[in-house]
């Protein structure tokens, strides 16, 4: 796949269709490819695409909003939803972007590999369901399914929803992905258990802001958390309240706009299950205001910027879960 992508990128760069290519290059380690911009055909030498290339490129397009020329970007299914969402919010201009859709059947998480005993990872090769992880201490043959990142285990859609051209076969939506299973499990707990669970999760937070910085929906130029007067300071939380507050507000700010790409949980250095907060909002909105998938369609109106005359009253939350 990497070579096909590289070839197509150099063609488009050479014939002047695009002036820059947004892709990935190797980062500090082989398992953390970082988003990179390539402006010449020669520089594309460094272009990589493998099963570690999990990062969502759509947010990086905002930077090119005010720059001249077209940008070529490779979007995986998750990323294409985010792109549509950014389009809805006028954060990117469709005409300035040339999208090549790439199919995706899940990305590998480095910590899962470590659990399987991979140390000193040097590279990865994929063949169907099998991956070959090259390490300092020899090669490791593993089953890809067992090494997928958390979010890929409950992938909502393998379909690239917006593209100019598609490399390979486009996938399909996956409505039976079971992405709300864990949310339902939590809902079935007593409030005391839930409180304990979330205290355990959120107290791990070191306020590095990685979840906010990576989130394609968190694209404000000035963030409420950067305002020293907001009462939420840029440092490790001094009190459990701050942890709760940060995470409630973070999830709230993307409620209805979150495409459930799972980047927040992927980048969390503390492995907090942040997507469970976002998914709760998605699930609740689906139940209260009808099914809605952010980013499935550009220009759609999110539930929280919309209303109907006969919406349910907030007290429904208390009666709905009364039995639990």
């Amino acid at each position: 796949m990497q070579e096909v992508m590289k070839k197509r990128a150099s063609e488009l760069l050479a014939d002047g269709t695009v002036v820059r290519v947004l892709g990935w290059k190797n980062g500090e380690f082989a398992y953390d490819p970082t988003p990179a911009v390539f402006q010449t055909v020669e520089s594309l030498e460094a272009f990589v695409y493998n099963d570690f290339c999990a990062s969502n490129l759509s947010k990086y397009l905002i930077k090119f909003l005010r720059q001249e020329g077209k940008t070529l970007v490779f979007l995986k299914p998750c990323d294409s939803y985010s792109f549509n969402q950014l389009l809805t919010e006028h954060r990117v201009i469709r005409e300035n972007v040339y999208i090549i859709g790439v199919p995706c059947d899940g990305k590998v998480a480095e910590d899962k590999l470590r659990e399987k005993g991979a140390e000193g990872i040097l590279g990865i090769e994929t063949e169907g369901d099998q991956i070959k992880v090259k390490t300092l201490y020899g090669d490791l043959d593993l089953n890809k399914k067992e090494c997928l990142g958390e979010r890929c285990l409950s992938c909502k859609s393998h379909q690239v929803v917006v593209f100019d051209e598609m490399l390979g076969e486009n996938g399909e939506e996956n409505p039976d992905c079971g992405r709300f299973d864990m949310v339902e499990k939590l809902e079935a707990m007593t409030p005391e258990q839930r409180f304990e669970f979330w205290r355990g999760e959120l107290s791990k937070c070191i306020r590095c802001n990685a979840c906010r910085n990576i989130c394609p929906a968190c694209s404000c130029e000035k963030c409420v958390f950067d305002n020293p007067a907001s009462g939420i300071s840029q440092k490790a939380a001094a009190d459990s309240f701050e942890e709760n507050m940060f995470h409630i507000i973070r999830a709230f700010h993307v409620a209805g706009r979150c495409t459930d790409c799972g980047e927040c949980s992927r980048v969390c250095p503390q492995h907090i299950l942040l997507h469970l907060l976002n998914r709760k909002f998605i699930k609740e909105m689906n139940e209260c205001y009808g099914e809605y998938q952010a980013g499935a369609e550009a220009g759609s109106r999110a539930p929280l910027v919309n209303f109907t005359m006969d919406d349910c009253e907030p007290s429904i939350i208390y009666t709905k879960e009364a039995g639990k």
Partner: protein
Amino acid sequence: MQVNNEFRPKIVAFCCNWCSYAGADLAGTNRANYPADVKIIRVPCSCRVNPMFILRAFQRGADGVILCGCHPGDCHYTTGNYYARRRMTMLFSMLSYLGIEKGRTRVEWVSAAEGAKFAATMNEFVETITALGENKRLEDLRCKK
């Protein structure tokens, strides 16, 4: 708050300027009784209330927060309370998801003519919160005296 070894809840009520605040006024002029534990904050519209306001109230020691606005359809700004309604539904569901006791937050629609309803709502809400006890799960120890 403990007064003479008895728990008295601190309640923050966000009231919209056009209906509920006037309703509270009417409750006063009608001499309808409601506990002094309720502190009213006037907002231009119920949809002015950002989820952060409610969290902040809890942080600063509130035991219960209630939002009062015009009845749906009667908003002074036509549609404000419809948005507030959705927003608050989501906030309440998130608070409950995080394990915060149900009933600490509430939304009630009170018109300017409903002084009696305002007093009744507040009496009832204070009772609920007194039964729930002190807000422990959403407190900020630094804000405690």
